[in-house]
């Protein structure tokens, strides 16, 4: 079973939710796909037993063959090629590795070379298998690293995917093919605004989902009104509670010290399981 945790708005508590859920159920593999700032390891403190460098193919120009015609730059949808008056430049950190420039080059002046785009970390903590990716500093394309993290998925486990915030390509890549998505939000105008965007994404992708309201007693009731109107289930409410915040500030998932919450997460997991089987 694959459960992704997404949000729309950043900072609503995706990683808190994902790590607490991971610690409440058995047989878990946690994939941290927020590769621009993977931070589930701060809460789970895994022992890292393996790392791998990730490479993508990016074009490189053979200047003796290139006549600076600019066809490659015109083709590039991601503005990763630039043609000055004298020569053609590649900006590898913007490249999506489609290989199109090599095909359109009439002079055969483009070959592909390896560019390091990130690192994959493998670890274990409290019986949880953790895999997370980290995008290389300066690189702009997170989706490649997300895809690599997900290709290491073990489908025999209960897979929890910690997605990046937003609703752009890396999020789509993260939630793709999940059986269920949990949207963590907060009851504020920003929370609701971005939640609506995330919901329209999941509907488009036909992924069943439910909402978790974090810091549930701040802000207003508009999230609840909206979910009621749209027939969306609110799966769990986590209050804005001093003890939870204190544990968070020390990097301790609150289920470890508040046993009643472990039960709530287990219950929620069973609810999701029933929803998927339906």
């Amino acid at each position, binding site marked *: 079973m694959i459960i992704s945790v997404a949000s729309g708005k950043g900072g609503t508590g995706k990683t808190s939710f994902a790590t607490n859920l991971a610690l409440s159920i058995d047989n878990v593999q946690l994939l941290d796909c927020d590769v621009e700032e993977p931070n589930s390891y701060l809460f789970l403190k895994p022992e890292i037993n393996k790392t791998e460098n990730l490479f993508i193919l990016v074009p490189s120009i053979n200047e003796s063959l290139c006549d600076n015609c600019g066809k490659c730059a015109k083709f590039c949808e*991601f*503005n990763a090629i630039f043609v000055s008056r004298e020569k053609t430049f590649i900006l590898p950190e913007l490249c999506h590795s489609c290989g199109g420039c090599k095909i359109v080059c009439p002079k055969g002046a483009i070959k592909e070379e390896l560019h390091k785009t990130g690192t994959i970390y493998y670890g274990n903590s409290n019986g949880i298998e953790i895999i997370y990716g980290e995008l290389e500093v300066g690189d702009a394309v997170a989706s490649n690293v997300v895809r690599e993290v997900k290709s290491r998925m073990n489908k025999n486990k209960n897979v929890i995917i910690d997605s990046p915030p937003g609703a752009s390509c890396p999020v789509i890549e993260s939630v793709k093919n999940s059986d269920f998505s949990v949207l963590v939000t907060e009851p504020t105008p920003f929370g609701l605004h971005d939640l609506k965007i995330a919901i329209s994404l999941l509907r488009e992708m036909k992924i069943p989902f439910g909402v978790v309201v974090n810091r549930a007693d701040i802000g207003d009731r508009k999230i609840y009104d909206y979910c009621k109107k749209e027939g969306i289930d609110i799966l769990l409410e986590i209050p804005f509670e001093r003890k939870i915040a204190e544990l968070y500030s020390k990097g301790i998932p609150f289920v470890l010290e508040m046993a009643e919450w472990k039960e709530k997460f287990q219950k929620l997991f069973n609810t999701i399981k029933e929803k998927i089987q339906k």
Partner: protein
Amino acid sequence: MKICVTSTGQSIDSAMDPRFGRCAYFIIIDPDSMDFESIPNDSVNAGGGAGVKSSQTLIDKGVDVIITGDVGPNALRILNTSNIKVIVGVNGTVKELVEKFKKGLLG
């Protein structure tokens, strides 16, 4: 010589747009005659590489000087290698900035 000022509007009296890659218009001016052309920036909504694309537009137009608020690292790198003078950290209308440039008061 051709000067480009990033602009919030199509006219020479518009305020400079402090963004480079995602400015609304490029106004390209001949400082001697003050004749100008305004070009809508089609990389306003680019997913990424807006500064690179804007640089390409201006290089293709044969611009020698760019006056704007700030330029990102990718664009700056390629503009520097193309021998284009980049003036940043200024503000005012397009016309005022070109006049100041002509008097040698910018950069």
